[in-house]
């Protein structure tokens, strides 16, 4: 499902930018919405991509997490790994719905629901919502790891997987 959304978003991104080039040379003035559409497609593709990268342990790490034969050690490192993800993402998820002082009227999503895109004629909440969706999916992957989803992938991929540095 995540892969499907990412492919669609990427296709929209490529299509919108290509349309912009074609239109620049075919019509006197290119449509003004292509750039904004491309940017929003990129945000969707990237945030959904972040969940896929997490699931595949593709995010660069300083040290490999495998290679520990000690069961105690494995539980300890697994706990720390899950803890940093939860510590980082939970407050951000919370503040998608609440503002300072836990005021629901000033939450991130509600604020976006009242803001229009520049050219596309819909509310920016349809882009902003990708943020909490990304967080929820990653938190589900964290749970799934403890449920034993992770057995093969953890061993087959080095966490410091260099592919992640696209340089």
């Amino acid at each position, binding site marked *: 499902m995540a892969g499907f959304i990412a492919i669609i978003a990427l296709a929209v991104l490529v299509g919108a930018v290509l349309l912009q080039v074609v239109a*620049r040379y075919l019509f*006197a*003035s*290119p449509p*003004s919405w292509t*750039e904004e559409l491309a940017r929003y497609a990129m945000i969707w593709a990237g945030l959904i991509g972040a969940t896929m990268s997490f699931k595949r342990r593709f995010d660069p790490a300083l040290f490999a997490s495998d290679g520990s034969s000690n069961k105690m050690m494995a539980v300890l490192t697994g706990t720390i790994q899950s803890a940093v993800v939860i510590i980082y993402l939970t407050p951000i998820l919370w503040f998608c719905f609440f*503002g*300072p002082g836990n005021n629901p009227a*000033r939450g991130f999503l509600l*604020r976006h629901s*009242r*803001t*229009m895109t*520049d*050219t596309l004629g819909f509310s*920016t909440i349809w882009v902003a919502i990708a943020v909490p969706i990304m967080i929820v999916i990653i938190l589900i992957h964290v749970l799934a790891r403890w449920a034993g989803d992770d057995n093969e992938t953890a061993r087959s991929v080095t966490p410091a997987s260099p592919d992640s540095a696209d340089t």
Partner: protein
Amino acid sequence: TEVKIAMNGTDDPVTNAEAAFVHGFADALEGTDFKAVVFPSDTLGSEKERFDTTAQGLIEIDLATVSTGVGMSPLLKGVLLPFLFKDSDEFDAVIAKSDLLEQMNKPLLENGVRLAGFNYIGVGIGIHNSQHAVTKMADLKGLRLRALNPEQLEYEEALGASGTIIAWSEVANAIQVGIADGYLNPPNSSLRTGHTAFLVHFTPANISPSTRAVFVANDWYETLSADEKAQIDKALDAGIAANRAWLTDWSTKVMARMKEAGVTISQLEPGEREKMVEATAPTWKTIMAPDALQKYLDALKTVKN
């Protein structure tokens, strides 16, 4: 307590008109319990982001481009309309003598932002280009001007030029390789960026005042006592006064600076600005809702009488 002021420019009151506001504001708070702390150069985020954190009451004061507020308060669009105001004095008079500011504020306040007033960053917007002197509207024909947004694109075309939307970071490149021939900006834009090296023609046209907004976090403001509110209001007025003093000083120097930078200044021939007003007036209605536009026209009428 700290009053955080976030801005996109540098904290240099000599070259930056918004920094002049900041220092006027900060000085006026001397002797109160408030202390202004400035966060220059987008350190607290880009335009949209600063606006958003102000709406949450986390930044007390945000010096922002007017267009960030347009998404919540469409009435603000009028400030950006081409050739609606004769000059910045007329704009100031309209804001002072009408209830427009109050009406602009209505949807903003619901979202936690209060528009306290406007800063200028320089003299009015004129025509920069790399090709030839522009003294008549007809001279714009054949020039491809960079557009900031669809609204600007529309009125550039109404003026007889062609337009193309280009991100600011690619503007220098685009003009030098010929994707665009120029842009509509106040003269300090090209002075600050060194674009004067290739944008060698400038025509002052007062297309619109080069206005930016002063947004105050309303959630914070409403927690203040009546005395404290008065102190902040006074400081805001002092900041805006410092900004206007800066502008007066700057307007005596700016054309000399442009000439020093090698730019040819061309004045519009008599009657040409009127032609431009006439050509672009129809775009007002497409840029803005008719009833909102009417509010500006009514306010202008009272000022002109």
